[in-house]
């Protein structure tokens, strides 16, 4: 397996910049997920890694070796495509054999590899079929098998689960993760689905408009998003973002949330990073995850970092495992995740506890995390 370094990779078409100075270093065995809305440049970046597109500037290093000028065939990379890209005129076995045949691997060795890959992916009974005789999930397995057969240094997955139906998508997701754990392969994976990114990645690169917004572990990206875009993009439901004024309240900091002409609601903050002090008196954007809120049942006592607040219930969305409740918090929509047995009714006023241990604040102007 291998390490991959992207160094100041840029791509532009004429005056339009598609990628701005992307630098990412991947350790051996890492599972990097490139995630972002469509048009963010993630597919372009993947094509550049594959060698299908040339970067306008910058360098790619695979195992420390500069591969920027190499054609795709010489990079020792395998790619799994969204449409599976199985060769329609070849059987499954021939498909898996193709990259080996192109590399002039010995015949007996090819047969051996086809066998072992087919066993690994449980497609042994499909080897003589043509791609059109396979279901979506089977095609996906074959596509992965073809990528595995070559034992490349690096695997690229371009939205491999997007064409599968929901149930199959979950199954294949688990399988891909298993495969990664078993092979210890270095993988770059592109998706627009943030849940896929969270579940699979060892590190996530969130992109938007050709700019790398944040590079971090799923935990970091979820809990300490670098800016309001990442905060809103990662996680479902999205992070609640509320404008508030940061004020000093005795020796502590506090947030004043004010909407319209109503008197502000003051929420005292627990210990915050020292960088916050620079923003006292100015407006910030407070970010709270839906699961940081709990219903203040009778007899429940607030923890050391919990604060109570009152709000009106607007909408209740039970999902089975838990219930999403949309609150009206001084004119702001605020989504909270409660237990499945929460007995609330729309229009009802209720008291909640919000745990501020994981509160994050963003600069209201730059929208960057204050840390």
């Amino acid at each position, binding site marked *: 397996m291998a390490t991959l370094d992207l160094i100041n990779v840029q791509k532009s078409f004429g005056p339009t910049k598609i990628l701005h100075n992307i630098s990412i270093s991947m350790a051996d065995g890492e599972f990097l997920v490139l995630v972002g809305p469509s048009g963010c440049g993630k597919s372009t970046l993947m094509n550049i890694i*594959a*060698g*299908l597109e040339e970067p306008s500037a910058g360098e790619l290093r695979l195992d420390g070796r500069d591969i920027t000028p190499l*054609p*795709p*065939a010489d*990079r020792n*990379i*395998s*790619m799994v*495509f*969204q*449409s599976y*890209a199985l*060769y*329609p*005129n*070849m059987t499954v076995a021939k498909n898996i054999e*193709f*990259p080996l045949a*192109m*590399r002039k691997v010995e015949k007996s060795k090819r047969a051996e590899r086809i066998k072992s890959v087919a066993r690994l992916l449980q497609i042994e009974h499909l080897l003589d079929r043509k791609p059109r005789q396979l279901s979506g999930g089977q095609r996906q397995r074959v596509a992965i098998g*073809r990528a595995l057969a*070559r034992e490349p240094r690096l695997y690229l997955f371009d939205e491999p689960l997007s064409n599968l139906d929901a149930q199959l998508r979950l199954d294949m997701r688990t399988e891909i993760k298993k495969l990664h754990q078993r092979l210890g392969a270095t993988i770059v994976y592109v998706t627009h689905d943030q849940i896929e990114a969270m579940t699979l990645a060892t590190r996530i690169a969130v992109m938007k408009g050709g700019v790398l917004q944040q590079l971090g572990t799923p935990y970091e990206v979820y809990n300490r998003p670098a800016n309001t875009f990442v905060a809103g993009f990662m996680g479902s439901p999205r992070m609640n973002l509320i404008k508030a004024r940061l004020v000093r309240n005795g020796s502590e900091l506090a947030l004043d949330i004010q909407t319209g002409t109503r008197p502000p609601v003051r929420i005292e903050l627990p210990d915050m990073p020292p960088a916050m002090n620079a923003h006292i008196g100015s407006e910030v954007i407070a970010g709270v995850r839906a699961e940081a809120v709990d219903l203040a049942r009778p007899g429940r006592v607030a923890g050391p970092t919990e604060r109570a607040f009152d709000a009106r219930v607007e909408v209740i969305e039970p999902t089975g495992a838990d219930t999403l409740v949309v609150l009206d918090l001084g004119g702001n929509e605020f989504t909270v995740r409660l237990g499945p047995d929460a007995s609330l009714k729309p229009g009802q006023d209720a008291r909640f506890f919000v745990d501020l241990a994981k509160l994050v604040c963003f600069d209201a102007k730059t929208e960057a995390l204050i840390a």
Partner: protein
Amino acid sequence: MADHRSQGFGADRILLYAVLLCLALLFLLPVYVMVVNSVKPLDEIRGGNLMALPVVWTIEPWLTAWSTAQIGVQPTGLKPYFLNSFLLVVPAVAISTLIGALNGYILTQFRFRGANLLFAAMLFSVFIPFQIVLIPMAKTLGILGLAGTVKGLIFVNVVYGIGFTTLFFRNYYAAFPIELIRSARIDGADFFGVLFRILLPSSGPIIVVTVIWQFTNIWNEFLFGASFSDYSSFPITVALNNLVNSSTGVKEYNVHFAGAFIAAVPTLVVYLISGKYFVRGLMAGSVKG
């Protein structure tokens, strides 16, 4: 209301079939005339009407047309020229089809600067009348030393066919999934590896279309054959013309009919075998691109 409509529909149907039947008869009539008169003795043709069935059946005219009829100055029949046409058509079709596939591949998968302009120029060649290129082509063949040979005719027909074959393959490959090509490139296929292992094996319908199109065009082509060949290299069309136009002796219409039919048989066979694919392939190529 519903009854009225279905009644009207029935009458429409009858009318439609009547018209279609008339048209079919109209189209089949020349074939009938040819076949019927090619198996009659010459006397019956001269004495009777063209539509009548033969009184005495004979295959003599067919044998004469094939092997003993006077073509120009030689009593060779159409046989050697039939062979010439095959020697011309098979390589010309194969080469122009391959070049068309290559062009289509390059024009769709390598979007180089000016690709569309180049394609437009090649498309334009389809519309150039044959007569315009006669003299420059004669000059070119002279320089290449191919004048009056079957090879020369192959060259001319390949050059003239490339416009069509490129058009066919380019439109077909424009709808070809690009991910397959990309995948093959990552898997290690080189330029011709992609063409021969991925593109061509998936090009069945368009290959059939191109082959039928080129085969019938080149087989039936007359002007180039008449202009750029000599007695040893005449294609069947020119030989047929010489057979019919030989000025000496009586006009043997039954032999002419048989000869014309012999000349038409290969294209007829090609259509009967693969006409189904022809229509299907035309549709497939025209969906996108």
